[in-house]
């Protein structure tokens, strides 16, 4: 960023003149952004002081909040990872050069017509079933009409009054650290639609040749989306974030989307309103956009609730207006984007270029039977195995981790031991190396072997850990490694006794000190013996024999 600013200053040295600054919009924009950044940084530095002075109002707010209830609903847009777009044969790859994946159809050229990609229907049916919805066997596409530069046809092909799925619900478990508990949130509807292109403002950096231009990238135009609308069932930021995370898990488990929020494959718009506890009718709802992470969903909602509660409690509830607010990640607050001036009229009408969408029961049954085990089913199954909720969530949150775990126990490993292994050193390794579970060299088969070898005493737990890292980084078999490195645990008392005697005889000084009352030295001896055994001596036997020897001669 900074270098770009610098470059534009260099190429236009005259911008320092104030009038030129006004004329050159993009340069002005850069300056604003820069100063904002500086401001944020300063704010962060002085934060402790601000916090102190704000302490009282915060406490007050906490007290007031008890009298209010927040009502939260979420609209989620899921970008489907079909090979081609919804209505043409262009592929879509995130991050490709602008306007390299476009055709007459997705550009909205005169005479071009949409042809439905049936994979979109398949994905929608999968998601509808996974969210326990009722499917519309006869649905249709409609046109949603508005003008914007990123919308090539001047309308978006969407579904209006007959969405493909309605009236479902989603189950989830709140993580223990956030209070835990099971939740069930209603799903109002799921419908199919196409994405719009992307406007690239000149502050993007690479497209800043001329300030007066804005650019449209139509690569994304026509990419299939599912819009999933929740019931207003959530009451705080955590619940909303967990709802969104569960949607992500479901679409990933189904394989219909990569669910990546940073790439915009999963977008959440949340509606927040508050009402005094006991009041039946809803308060004025405010929409929040620009939420690029689950943590942002949670924090933005909690901020917005506080803002609304504060206004309401001060009798300023008229200032809570129907509007769209943006989450400002830097400032950690929501700011007004646009106030709604009446209802926008999208003039929906049935899309005449596409025939109706007719599902047969056979088709639906076929998809139903091919659904994978979904996160909720997995969690309940793990629960029955006796795993803790913390373990359950860790394993079930990532489909690949869950699959690894499932395969490991299928190979005979004990569920709890397998969970422990995966969650401890294994997880730490993946985190440090920034690898996904599919990228590590260790197979579930070998993890099961490893656990079995420790259990039957062939190797010690300590050796097991050593081997684990080797297996994670380089692969190979547990058996092979044990043989290659001669790591089988020494459980023969005679052999251990020999080693004990050797160490004691080589350290007469320490032996004397021990026998003189410095019993702490037992650990020293144990370490020396373990070293001599290359870590293979059974620790229990070692200590038993060592003690016998140490104390025998005293």
């Amino acid at each position, binding site marked *: 960023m900074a270098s770009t600013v610098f470059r534009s200053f260099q190429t236009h040295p005259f911008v320092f003149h104030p009038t030129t600054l006004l004329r050159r919009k993009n340069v002005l924009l850069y300056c604003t952004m820069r100063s904002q950044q500086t401001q944020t940084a300063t704010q962060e530095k002085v934060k402790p002081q601000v916090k102190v002075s704000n302490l009282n109002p915060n406490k007050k707010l906490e007290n007031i909040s008890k009298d209010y209830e927040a009502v939260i609903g979420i609209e989620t847009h899921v970008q489907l990872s079909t090979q081609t777009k919804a209505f043409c044969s262009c592929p879509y790859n995130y991050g490709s050069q602008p306007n390299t994946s476009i055709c007459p159809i997705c550009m909205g050229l005169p005479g071009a017509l949409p042809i439905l990609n049936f994979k979109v229907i398949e994905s929608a049916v999968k998601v509808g079933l996974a969210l326990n919805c009722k499917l519309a066997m006869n649905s249709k596409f409609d046109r949603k009409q508005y*003008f914007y530069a990123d919308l090539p046809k001047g309308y978006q092909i969407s579904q209006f009054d007959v969405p493909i799925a309605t009236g479902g619900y989603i189950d989830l478990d709140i993580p223990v650290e956030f209070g835990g508990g099971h939740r069930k949130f209603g799903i109002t509807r799921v419908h199919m639609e196409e994405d719009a292109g992307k406007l690239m403002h000149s502050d993007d950096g690479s497209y800043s040749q001329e300030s007066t231009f804005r650019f449209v990238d139509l690569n994304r135009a026509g990419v299939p989306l599912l819009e999933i609308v929740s019931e207003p069932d959530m009451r705080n930021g955590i619940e909303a974030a967990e709802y969104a995370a569960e949607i992500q898990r479901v679409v990933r488990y189904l394989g219909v989307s990569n669910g990546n929020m940073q790439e915009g494959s999963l977008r959440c718009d949340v509606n927040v309103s508050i009402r005094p506890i006991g009041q039946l009718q809803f308060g004025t709802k405010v929409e929040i956009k620009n939420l690029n992470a689950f943590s942002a969903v949670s924090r933005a909602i909690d901020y917005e609730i506080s803002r609304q509660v504060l206004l309401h409690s001060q009798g300023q509830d008229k200032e809570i207006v129907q509007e769209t607010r943006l989450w400002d990640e830097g400032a950690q607050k929501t700011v007004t984007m646009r106030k709604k001036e009446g209802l926008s009229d999208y*003039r929906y009408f049935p899309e005449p*270029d596409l025939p109706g969408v007719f599902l047969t029961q056979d088709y639906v049954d076929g998809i139903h039977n091919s659904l994978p085990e979904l996160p909720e089913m997995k969690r309940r199954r793990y629960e029955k195995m006796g795993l803790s909720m913390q373990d359950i969530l860790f394993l079930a949150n990532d489909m690949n981790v869950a699959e690894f775990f499932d395969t490991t126990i299928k190979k005979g490993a004990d569920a709890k031991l397998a969970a422990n292994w995966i969650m401890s050193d294994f997880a730490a390794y993946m985190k440090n190396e920034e690898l996904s579970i599919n990228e590590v060299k260790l197979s579930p088969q070998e993890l099961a072997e490893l656990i079995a070898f420790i259990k039957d005493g062939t190797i010690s737990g300590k050796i097991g850990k050593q081997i684990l890292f080797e297996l994670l980084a380089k692969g190979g078999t547990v058996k092979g490694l044990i043989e290659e490195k001669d790591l089988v645990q020494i459980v023969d008392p005679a052999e251990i006794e020999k080693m004990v005697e050797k160490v004691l005889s080589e350290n007469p000084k320490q032996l004397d000190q021990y026998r003189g009352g410095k019993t702490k030295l037992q650990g020293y001896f144990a370490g020396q013996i373990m070293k001599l055994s290359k870590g293979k001596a059974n620790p229990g036997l070692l200590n038993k024999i060592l003690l016998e020897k140490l104390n025998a001669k005293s």
Partner: protein
Amino acid sequence: MLSTLQPPRSLSHFRTKPLLLRRHTSLKPLSSLSSQPVTHSTLTDQSQSQILSTRDSLLSRQITAAELAESFLARLRRTEPHLRSFLHVSDAVLTQARDLDDKLRRNEEVGPLAGVLVAVKDNICTAEMPSTAGSRVLEGYTPPYDATAVRKIKELGGIVVGKTNLDEFGMGSTTEGSAFQVTANPWDTTRVPGGSSGGSAAAVSARQSMVSLGSDTGGSVRQPASFCGVVGLKPTYGRVSRFGLMAYASSLDVIGCFGTSVADAGILLHAISGHDRLDATSSKREVPDLASQFVSISLLQSKPLKGLKIGLIRETLDDGVDIGVTSAIRTAALHLEELGCSVTEVSLPSFSLGLPAYYVIASSESSSNLSRYDGLRYGNQVAADELNSQYMDSRAKGFGSEVKRRILTGTYALSAGYYDAYYKRAQQVRTIIRKSFKAALDEHDILISPAAPSAAYKIGEKKNDPLAMYAGDIMTVNVNLAGLPALVLPCGYAEGGSAGLPVGLQMIGAAFDEEKLLGVGHIFEQTLQNCRFVPPLIADEDKPC
């Protein structure tokens, strides 16, 4: 057998002079249409298939494709200053004709449309030629692809002569709504050729091309066919791919064919028909071999249409229809009876509902379809300070008044609070109309009516009276709402011009039964006496054999 046919009686009151000009000199039985007389005339009669005779002449080396093309281009150059039917004339016609001649010389196989000169309405995309839909908003725009219909014609050896004039985006009935020029009727150049496919109809009527493509949303092929004295065929919705046809009203639009004979219109339809994976509304039905029924009249029996039940739609001969039109249609009905048909009047009570329903649906869809013309990606862009004024300026300057009127009407009809009263109601009417046509066609093989309430009227006559112009669509819009096929063919004359003005008979068939329409139309045309629909503009150019 033909001697049993009486001259049309109702024409007697004005036929004394003009009919002498139109006397058909070659009514003698032809051996077969596919083996035409050896002397090739580029100015053929209505009853002859130009496509079939072109094929014969080329294959028997009586004429080269280049000679043929040159003769059409010469006529085009001579007549175009009077007609202005083309917005763009291809500069590749002769090259393509010579390429074809090379192929013939090498005895290579050529397609069934080899050497056939086709004009294409300018709202149908062509990759090598501008395609403007008659609108400023697309001035100078050349699409990157051919419409499916054009691609098929080219693949079968057809040569695209050029792009024909039309009412902007097909919205109009006179071709005066073009942003670029007004086309004249070859029968009387002070009159309109009809519309919106006026350029395509005039081009075929004046033999500037052998056949042409038009589009028909509410009658835009059939009414100009009637006005210009040519055959116009509106296929069943879904029979021909709309891919590459710039949408006016997607649920009504079809690409249609013009020819100087039923056979030509049928052969052209056959060439462009069939499922297209680029148009989800195109039908997967098999396309029957439409050409086999275009047999010579010598093979016909004395009552070739014996047993055929024809319904004359009573509501189409009501008040408000010109006397010249009603008498021509009644004469045509008599002619059909002579051929063995039983003709009875049939009432379609919902008929008059079609016009308002059509204008609501077509305007609604057009308001949406034309949203893409925003000047951002193609076409004319007006520079502006911000996005909204860019939209407004580009569209204000790009669209003509009739287009704006329909966009506004449609926007209104689709607005919240009005949707139920207009759009939804119109769809309900559409269902009623579809059902009543279905019922009438269960009872009858074919329904007949005029194609327009009048013959061609004067340029400027209805230009400032949109409602009067809309009313002229009464005969045709119902067929689009019902999605049915209809064939219009010249059947007689009304008074006007130096040689009378042609009147077209509309034959409406059951969905996907173009075959029957073409068969009946062909027999009707072959047995029609004393009519030779060659406009005076070119009538003295080339004496028919």
